[in-house]
């Protein structure tokens, strides 16, 4: 055994270190930088006050998503503060020569949806954005993670950030997934095992047959949620599924550039015998459709199970009790049968075409439950067009659902899509923190299939009962 064996993460990381600072972080080069309206204005102000320029405007991409409305996008944005941020993004992009997909642009959508679908996200790259779910792009074998506004300013001004190299973790899931078990369930299961701090300080590689067989959409869902177990990010080695997804996308390499890129991308995998600081193994058949019952994404369980007792878990009872009290649930309650007021399908976790196909497969031939308010929000205009082209819109309409326009929407409720206090939402997004979907809102995270089952029955329902 030699010392040359490297993990996928090592290979990409090491290729981007400009300078190593002794007993300090690495100066780390960034290939692609995404910005949106919420975390960028202050960074641009910083540039201005220091009198420095954007170093490589062609490597930064702006899209408006976090606080955009999901209806009537052709009208002026009502909320003056949101309108102000959107205007700032547009003006800053124009001033520094950054490409900008604002409201109404056919390429507009959630930053982590539009990057991959336009071929901006590629294997072996380093990608950052002022949003923690930037980890999504790791699905392509890229190192991708969220940064703070000061770091946005660093990337704008120098294309670099200062980062200590995280430790390495590999999570293996092998075997075959059961009926109605989706990538979202796989990730909620892993987080429930590792807890929300279980991967803090690590960068995760996902490996094993389950991920090898997974579509790119599914891989993005899994990598997206890496941050919810505290990891800096997560990645999956690129393979034929990745290359097929990328090929032909608007900004993907073409011709000779494609051939040489492909050769390079094929080397992006963990060498046999390479060392990880920590490794976990899970069995696919242990996973069932999941749902969360508490106020962090680690508080998830198989949908047919009972809410665990605090005494069976590690960690503070007080925090656990507070969390259940907020949700209005008790230890050993059943989740199945709980009333649902709102259903949200969308976000950068589950707002891609595959998610709407899954949703439609359950609601087809059924009707929306009368007491449920449903927000069906595509991740981008491209996804919206696909929904229409594939006939999914017709299925939605027939079942009594309305399709909204793209944006982050109820994922963080910065626009009008807020769940009222005390109301229950089954949501395909990524966070169930107190008040995340509106002050006092109670969120249960789940897959598009579980969301669909709740939308047509009005109660938490095992999707396996509704599909053949």
């Amino acid at each position, binding site marked *: 055994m030699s010392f040359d064996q490297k993990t996928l993460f090592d290979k990409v990381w090491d290729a981007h270190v400009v300078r190593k600072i002794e007993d300090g972080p690495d100066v780390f*080069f960034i290939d692609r930088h995404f910005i949106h309206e919420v975390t960028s204005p202050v960074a641009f102000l910083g540039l201005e006050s220091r009198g420095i320029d954007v170093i490589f405007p062609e490597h930064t991409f702006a899209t408006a998503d976090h606080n955009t409305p999901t209806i009537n996008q052709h009208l002026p944005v009502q909320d003056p503060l949101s309108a102000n941020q959107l205007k700032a993004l547009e003006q800053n992009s124009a001033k520094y020569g950054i490409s900008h997909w604002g409201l109404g642009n056919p390429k507009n959508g959630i930053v982590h949806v539009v990057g991959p679908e336009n071929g901006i996200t590629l294997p072996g790259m380093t990608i950052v954005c002022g949003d*923690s779910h930037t980890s999504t792009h790791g699905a392509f074998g890229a190192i991708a993670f969220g940064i703070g506004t000061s770091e946005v300013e660093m990337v704008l001004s120098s*294309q670099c950030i200062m980062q200590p190299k995280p430790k390495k973790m590999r999570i293996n899931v092998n075997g075959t997934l059961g009926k109605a078990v989706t990538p979202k369930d796989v990730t909620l299961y892993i987080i429930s095992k590792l807890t929300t701090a279980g991967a803090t300080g690590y960068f995760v590689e996902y490996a094993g047959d389950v991920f090898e067989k997974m579509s790119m959409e599914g891989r993005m869902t899994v990598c997206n949620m890496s941050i919810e177990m505290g990891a800096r990010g997560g990645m999956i080695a690129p393979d034929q599924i990745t290359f097929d997804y990328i090929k032909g996308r608007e900004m993907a390499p073409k011709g000779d550039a494609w051939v040489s890129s492909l050769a390079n991308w094929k080397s992006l995998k963990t060498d046999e015998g390479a060392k990880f600081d920590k490794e976990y193994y899970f069995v696919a058949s242990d996973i069932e459709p999941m749902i969360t019952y508490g106020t962090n994404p680690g508080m998830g369980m198989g949908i047919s199970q009972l809410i665990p007792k605090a005494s069976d878990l590690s960690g*503070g009872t007080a925090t656990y009790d507070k969390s259940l009290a907020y949700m209005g649930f008790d230890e050993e309650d059943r989740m199945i049968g709980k009333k649902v007021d709102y259903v949200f399908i969308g976000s950068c976790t589950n707002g891609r075409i595959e998610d709407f196909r899954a949703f439609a497969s359950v609601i087809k031939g059924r009707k929306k439950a009368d007491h449920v308010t449903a927000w069906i929000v595509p991740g981008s205009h491209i996804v919206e067009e696909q929904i229409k082209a594939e006939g999914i819109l017709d299925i939605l309409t027939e079942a009594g659902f309305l399709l909204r326009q793209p944006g982050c929407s109820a994922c963080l409720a910065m626009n009008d899509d807020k769940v009222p206090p005390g109301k229950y939402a089954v949501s395909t997004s990524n966070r169930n923190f107190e008040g995340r979907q509106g*002050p006092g809102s109670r969120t249960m995270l789940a897959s598009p299939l579980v969301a669909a089952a709740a939308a047509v029955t009005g109660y938490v329902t095992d999707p396996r009962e509704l599909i053949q």
Partner: protein
Amino acid sequence: MAYDKFISLKSTMVPLPIENVDTDQIIPARFLKATKREGFGDNLFRDWRYNPDNTPKEDFVLNNSVYSGKILVGGRNFGSGSSREHAACAIYDYGFRCVVSSFFADIFKNNAINMGILPVQVSPGFLDEIFSIIEKDPSSELEVSLTDQTITILSTGSRENFEMNSYKKNNLMNGFDDIDYLQSMKSEILEFAKTRAI
């Protein structure tokens, strides 16, 4: 952001003995709509601090005049959740210069240092000791020395060392930030960029 130098600090503390305090609690997303970096302190812990009608919640620690100071002491896994720097910014803007916990979420820790806040990670036992001292006497003080990398409970003399890499330490002690450092090596970065076919 330019901030005050951090050398050492002696102060009373504000206790928040809750685990997993996430960034949505530190500053709810609806307050992220500003295009300037000011006024965030007013919305620090907004939903724990105020009722929906904006009257203060009596039982929340920031509304209790018994507790004050520049040091916030939080439960394990402080700052989990989103990368929003507004969280660290709100803590700084409110007037805290140091946060003590037995464990910090990664991004929060980074953001805090970039804002000029010193995150001090102590052992779970030491954290419990701090909480019980505050409970006994809210006027107890902590002394945090970045130079020596020590944290001391003044009334008992109980002390622990904490970790901080020398690069970050140097920045905090001089009031520099990463952007100053990166600007100073621009030509090296431009050379490197040529090797990345992007």
